């Protein structure tokens, strides 16, 4: 993963309350998953306020549609993509 990322992908299922160690530059970040994170889904590495950019691969994958706490599951319920959004266009811009 990229040093600027604020989410990480679970390469195996993480149980609610489980402590996980995420490799980051020069060490490891330890945090507790607040809920179950299925294989292949994303975990917030820090608190992310509503509207903040969410980064994976060092690039923008969307923004927080609600407040996300460190250790939360990050998916379509709290992350929204901003590209190619005809619905936003219709409502008069982003």
């Amino acid at each position, binding site marked *: 993963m990229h040093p600027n990322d604020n989410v990480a992908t679970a390469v195996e299922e993480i149980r609610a309350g489980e402590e996980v160690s995420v490799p980051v530059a020069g060490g490891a970040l330890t945090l507790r998953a607040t809920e179950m994170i299925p294989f292949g889904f994303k975990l917030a590495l820090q608190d992310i306020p509503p509207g903040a950019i969410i980064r994976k691969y060092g690039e923008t994958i969307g923004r927080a549609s609600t407040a996300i706490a460190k250790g939360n599951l990050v998916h379509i319920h709290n992350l929204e993509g901003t590209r190619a959004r005809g*619905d936003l266009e219709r409502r008069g811009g982003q």
Partner: protein
Amino acid sequence: MSFLGYIRPDGSVGTRNHVLVIPQGIIAKSVCDFVAGTKTILTADHGSGRTANDREQIARVLIGLGRSPNVASVIVHAASPGAGYPELRAERLVDEIAASGKRVEILDPAKDGGTYGAILKGIQLARRMVHEASRSRREKVEDEHLCLGVKCGYSDTTSGIAGNPAVGYLYDKVVAAGGTALFGETTEIIGAEQALIRRAARPEVAEAILRTVTVQEDRAKATGLDIRTVNPVPSNIKGGISSLEEKSLGAIHKAGTAPIQGVLKYAERPTRKGLYFVDNWMGHLSIFAGYAAAGANVVLFQLGGGGVAGRTLLEGSPSVVVPFLWATANPRTYAAATDSIDFYSGTVIEGSETPEEAGERLYRTVIDVASGTLSLSETLYYTEPIDLYLQEPRF
């Protein structure tokens, strides 16, 4: 490294040795049903009522398939409903295919005794042409003659961490050897274009990538729809992909790390070697016929897992004359459809192989298929119809 292929008069190298009968229709189908070793295309679009741009796109597919290095010789018939348009005249198709130096014959029901007469003549010609093609022998050639095409689908996390990286390794290796590699799916680079333009070989390539993305994104916005109800597709979301941008950033891993030499239209042939982006659409019944027409001689579908539960048989052959491989890194997909899957790289997740080792094994699989080993989908007669990528309204 090298493979065994059929050297064609224009210097391109085939991995198969078919006789092609085009366009689609009862004449082509009847000839192919009667004569072994022949192929035709199966698609509903023959150009009638289509705009000039779309007719040219159809012509590019037909001419491109005719010129494919996997085709020894071609029969063109003049009975297609679209043949009255200048772009799709049988004589035009014949001339442009014959420019590659291969044998091209024409069937015209108006001169050859009607539909029955054209079928009879076609069967007689095709038998001689298949027999003549069978005299060709494979020769050892270098990897610079490989031209690959890829798409990923039903993408999930295994695609991003083990499937696409193995394909990326293959792409880098073939491009480094002087070969050609094609990737595309314009909707699935929205959000990843900055990562791609950093790899543009020249400034005009970066501009072309940005222009292509802008046109596609504007089309998406013009629908007034939330793209998330369309793409990522439900199987992607089930697999953990949350946005189109995230899907795009994972998808581009399959293109490796080589510089991008240009942006091609659907079914357009690259003018040089190297890695190219193709402005096409993700549908597998569309994309592979386009790669085949662009000159690809091996194509791959990197399969994830979302939404494929219960699919124990993966159909194939959407690439008409080009061997088609199924690859996956998802253990459940592989376990369900082992008989259909040519390459498995879930080993990377299981820890028994590095991504490089898996990529090297994929490369050897491709060389093997290029040299004549059948891909698993080639063991089926079943052929899916082709969905030509046409973008303009019909009138």
